């Protein structure tokens, strides 16, 4: 089987790396077509912990990868001004506290909070306390279960990650061809794409095409007319402006997402610079205003000219159609509020590997792939939407828009269960586990009216003592942990690059 990947951004090179490594000797050839003339979006510089598994299965050394991609560790996302102006909370990777008598700790804290100052949920997560103090250590270094109950991801330069994976892929036999697609040849009978023609006249024939061409969806949409499910009624932000700036002295092991009047702003600290962007809804703010908001809220001087991006939230009707699999932005777009872009790429690659065609593509493989990816996208969509609707903000037209929104049933049920009794409806297949839902709902002041009745079955004094021990355990361990920057040095992940300075 010959595979042609169209597009060389994060999605393209991640796909090339995985196929060339995991299906070596099985795939006849992997060709990646990209054009230096087409700039990549560089989806999401922040990631979810799942990416560690992706890198591990490729045999990528963590320190080397971090050094070459200017990566930092990520313990979560700090959300500012979401529930109310002035609020902030961190959504960590991991749980809060330890269950007591089989009941989640946050339920006990809801009761405790009625009887005094027992801190906030954030005090019971090692990842959050470490993040706030710019500290980092690996979970396995924790001396107690609580100190180990967190996950971590990375923040990196997506362009450098693509380059890193390009080297990896080429070593594994991937052939890179420079060029732009000017034509596609479709078999009239099967509807499959048989070849693409590049601007220099080269024809690249393949049995399977992976469309990583970004928003345009050159193969999946422009050629095969997959169609698009528009979700902008739920997630209406449709533009972003991005710019890097000089980094702060403290290297934060977390991403920040600050709510704005007509969108939100990201801040992703890397070793050599900080990535920033303002996602917004053009209905309520102009491009100039959005850029101005971004530029006036940077850590340091901008390093480049702001770059505009345009998008429509939603997903393709078919992620895989005929012999074309869309991975990355060509498959769909969900704003990077929870760093899910690279995660969805990874999900697509994982499923493709498992369902990789034998001689020809099969309708059964296509339908299984499409079912899985549809579920993943839908569940991420609900989680993102939660951030916009779990709020008391009504200080702008955008926030007022969300006040009256009819939510998808799946999300409405979750919120109802939470508000009534702090119950989190669970699922098995999806990026976000219950602690993530708890983090956002608690963090954005969705306060349950009641707590789980089983909480009252625990001895109150003992619960008080346990909770104090938990906080002390975490605080003590964090105080002894290395700073984020020191940790990067110690493991050999510190970059040799000078910090970028504005000209």
């Amino acid at each position, binding site marked *: 089987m010959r595979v042609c990947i169209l597009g060389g951004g994060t999605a393209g090179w991640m796909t090339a790396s995985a196929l060339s490594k995991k299906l070596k000797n099985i795939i006849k050839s992997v060709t990646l077509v990209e054009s230096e003339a087409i700039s990549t979006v560089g989806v999401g510089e922040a990631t979810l912990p799942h990416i560690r598994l992706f890198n591990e299965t490729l045999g990528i050394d963590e320190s080397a990868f971090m050094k070459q991609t200017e990566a930092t560790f990520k313990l979560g996302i700090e959300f500012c001004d979401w529930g109310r102006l002035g609020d902030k909370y961190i959504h960590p990777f991991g749980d809060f506290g330890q269950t007591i008598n089989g009941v989640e700790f946050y339920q006990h804290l809801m009761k405790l909070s009625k009887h005094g100052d027992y801190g906030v949920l954030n005090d019971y997560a090692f990842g959050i306390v470490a993040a706030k103090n710019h500290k980092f250590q690996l979970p396995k270094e924790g001396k107690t279960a609580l100190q180990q109950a967190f996950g971590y991801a990375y923040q990196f330069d997506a362009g450098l990650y693509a380059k890193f994976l390009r080297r990896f892929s080429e070593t594994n036999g991937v052939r890179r061809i420079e060029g732009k697609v000017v034509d596609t040849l479709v078999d009239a009978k099967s509807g499959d794409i048989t070849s693409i023609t590049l601007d220099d006249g080269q024809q690249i024939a393949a049995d399977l095409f992976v469309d990583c061409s970004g928003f345009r969806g050159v193969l999946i949409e422009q050629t095969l007319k997959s169609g698009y499910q528009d979700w902008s009624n739920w997630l209406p932000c449709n533009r972003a402006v991005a710019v890097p700036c000089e980094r702060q002295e403290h290297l934060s092991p977390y991403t920040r997402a600050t709510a704005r009047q007509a969108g939100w702003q990201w801040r992703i600290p890397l070793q050599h610079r900080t990535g920033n962007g303002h996602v917004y809804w053009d209905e309520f703010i102009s491009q100039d205003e959005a850029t101005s908001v971004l530029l006036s809220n940077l850590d340091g001087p901008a390093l480049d000219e702001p770059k505009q991006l345009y998008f429509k939230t939603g997903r393709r009707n078919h992620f895989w159609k005929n012999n074309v699999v869309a991975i990355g932005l060509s498959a769909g777009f969900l704003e990077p509020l929870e760093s899910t872009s690279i995660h969805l790429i990874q999900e697509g690659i994982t499923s493709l590997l498992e369902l990789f065609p034998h001689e020809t593509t099969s309708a059964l493989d296509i339908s299984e792939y499409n079912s899985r990816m549809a579920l993943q996208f839908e569940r991420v969509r609900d989680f993102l939407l939660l951030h916009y609707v779990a709020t008391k903000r009504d200080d702008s037209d955008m926030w007022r828009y969300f006040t009256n929104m009819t939510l998808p049933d799946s999300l409405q049920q979750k919120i109802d269960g939470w508000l*009534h009794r702090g*119950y989190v409806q669970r699922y098995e297949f999806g990026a976000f586990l219950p602690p993530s839902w708890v983090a956002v709902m608690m963090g954005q002041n969705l306060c349950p*009216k009641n707590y789980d009745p089983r909480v009252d079955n625990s001895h109150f004094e003992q619960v008080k003592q346990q909770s104090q021990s938990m906080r002390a355990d975490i605080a003590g361990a964090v105080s002894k942990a290395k700073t984020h920057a020191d940790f990067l040095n110690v493991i050999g992940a510190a970059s040799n690059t000078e910090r970028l300075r504005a000209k």
Partner: protein
Amino acid sequence: MSNQDISQLLVFGNTLAASMTVLALSKALPRNIKILWVKPSVPCASDLLYGGISSPEAYQFNLQYGVTEPQLILDTDTTFTFGTRYNSWGKHNRAWMQCFHLPFAATSGVELHHFMTRHNATLGDFLISAQAAMKGTFAHPPTDNLQSPLSRAEYGYHFDPSQWSAIFFDKIDKARVKIINGNIESLKHSQGQIDQIDIDYVQLDDGTKLQANLYIDCSGTSSQLLSRLNNDFVCQRTVQLSSKTLECAQTGPARRLITGTEQGWLSVTPLRQKNHELSLFESSVGDEQANGQTFTLGYRTKAWQGNCVAIGHAAYALEPITPAPYILLKKDIERLLELIPVNHETQIESQEYNRRFKDDLIHAELFHRAIYAQQRDVGYGECEKLDRKLTQYLHRGILASFDFEPFNPQDWAILHSGLGRVPQRYDRMAEQVDFEKMQAHLDTMSKGIAHLASNMPTHHLYLEKLSMYLKDSKQHGQ
């Protein structure tokens, strides 16, 4: 945050479900929530529908409520089980050991069952729980030697529901739970919150009227509370079950045996020095069987209506061809504990309970449907979810899954293999593993497992020694 204003729960029934539910509620809920248990004098016959077999989760579930394995071994006829051996099953007289097992070891990221397809091997040869069960041996999986193949085995129990009911009953703090021996003669209900009917009170056979915030129907298949609020039972088929217990010289192997028959199937469940035999007859195939009891298999569309929730067989009746009835009971109780109402507005709880109930039931039933698919027509209709599972497996060995299924991917892989379902293809990543080396590895693995299984003690001997040890420990106060 409001005060919790649920003050009284009423459980009704004399079933395993009732004993387990009352014990769980009494241990998990605060004392300000009073628990009444109206317990009829005669145990319900529908406990037969557990088939006398639990899943591996029983150990942990029992333990958290104070019921220990040593107690079950010393005080009841409970024996260990590695699963169920099916014999003469379906059109092709299939035979296989449906064993319990932890996730299979993967090689180069590829799951074991794909290598079975590639190397034309039989999955059961590589599963210690299957091999030991076939050889009649047993030992506890070690927790301190993860290199041993036995550490991947899981086990459940063969049990007598009435004995387990008694054990759970004994564990109940009688000062915590008010037990009323009696029967519910009638109940009064009225329109409650939006679109729901609530029970106002129940009246016992001695005329006593009892009220509660939540009525928990554990009355078995008669569903004496819920069915009076809304009789929405979806009938799937009618079967007859007859059972008998035969003494035997020594305890049988650590597996249940189910043999397909012309009329249905016959199961033999080894208890301590006795075998419990259960025969299922499809009602369509002939006259009523001697000593047979008729059961209508099916389920209620909503297990929680108004202020009444049905647990176990009061909500559904599945044939006991797998441990599904036990698994579902356990899930019912866990779901109920998570959703004990916080006040009189129970719509959120009932809606969520019913959503999860339906998913669990449908997913458990998928496994039953899969046992019969292309083997025997018992009236199951089309099922999109099963279709996805079967086609994906047959196509390329994909174990398509849904959220929180009662049967895990290993169960499904073993079932497919047992029924002779061979995927047309296997995971392509398997080709990265050298064929000869993998074949050698598989040969070594199967020989090692067969050797280990043969060298384990026989189940009956293991039980005898364990009992002696436990008795001795008890006498010495350890």
